[in-house]
């Protein structure tokens, strides 16, 4: 599997019938069809990396705390915990 960076055309992958904050973003069985979907913000901070896995059913992977090291004097990445989430 080869990951690529997020594009604006991938926005549809970032919302769906998932429980917020769970590790594996699988659909919830009895999700009310008129409930607003859980939405993940597009990447905007270098401490969070959100990548796309083309041709996979769970296509977005959120890598937290694995971004490039923070610049000296920046605290943006120092409190992030490492982990990943599939959507």
């Amino acid at each position: 599997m080869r990951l690529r960076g997020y594009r604006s055309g991938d926005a549809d992958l970032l919302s769906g019938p998932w429980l917020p904050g769970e590790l594996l973003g699988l659909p919830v069985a009895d999700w009310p069809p008129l409930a607003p979907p859980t939405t993940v913000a597009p990447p905007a901070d270098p401490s969070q990396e959100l990548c796309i896995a083309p041709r996979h059913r769970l296509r977005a992977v959120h890598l937290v705390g694995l971004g490039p090291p923070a610049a000296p004097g920046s605290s943006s990445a120092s409190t992030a915990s490492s982990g990943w989430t599939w959507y």
Partner: protein
Amino acid sequence: MTTTELPRWSSRPYADADRDAVLALFTEPDFFFRTGDPDTRPEWEILSLLDEDTHVLLANGEVVGLYAVESEANNACHYSMQLRLRASAPLEWWQSAFAELSRANRWRREVVRLALRFDEFDSRGLAFARTAGLREEGTLGAVSVHEGQRYGYVSFAQIWEPIS
């Protein structure tokens, strides 16, 4: 499909792409969504009735109505709902859509009171409210003029036991 079969419901916030479908809803003389005279409103006035809370309601992917849910009373789990389906939608669709909306609105937050109100001249809205298991709370008389006569509105609510 016969009209009594229940459709697959979906919804989305109103957007410009829905404009033609929504303007078509307001050509019906009893599409009472935030107005008592829908069919004679000009386009700009119809668009001014739609806000960020307004959602289009789709039955099997087709726009058949509008709804909005707003928070009332400083986050005390008190919400109000405005719901309107087009004239061809049977009463069973209103009841089914309301049941789904009620479930969706309570999905990730507590709702203690959900209030709806319908004008006295709105026979379809009142027929829905009186068959949906809602509590009828009374009529505030003579609040509007419709086709030369004064009418009030009737308040309804569903109340759940508070859990917090």
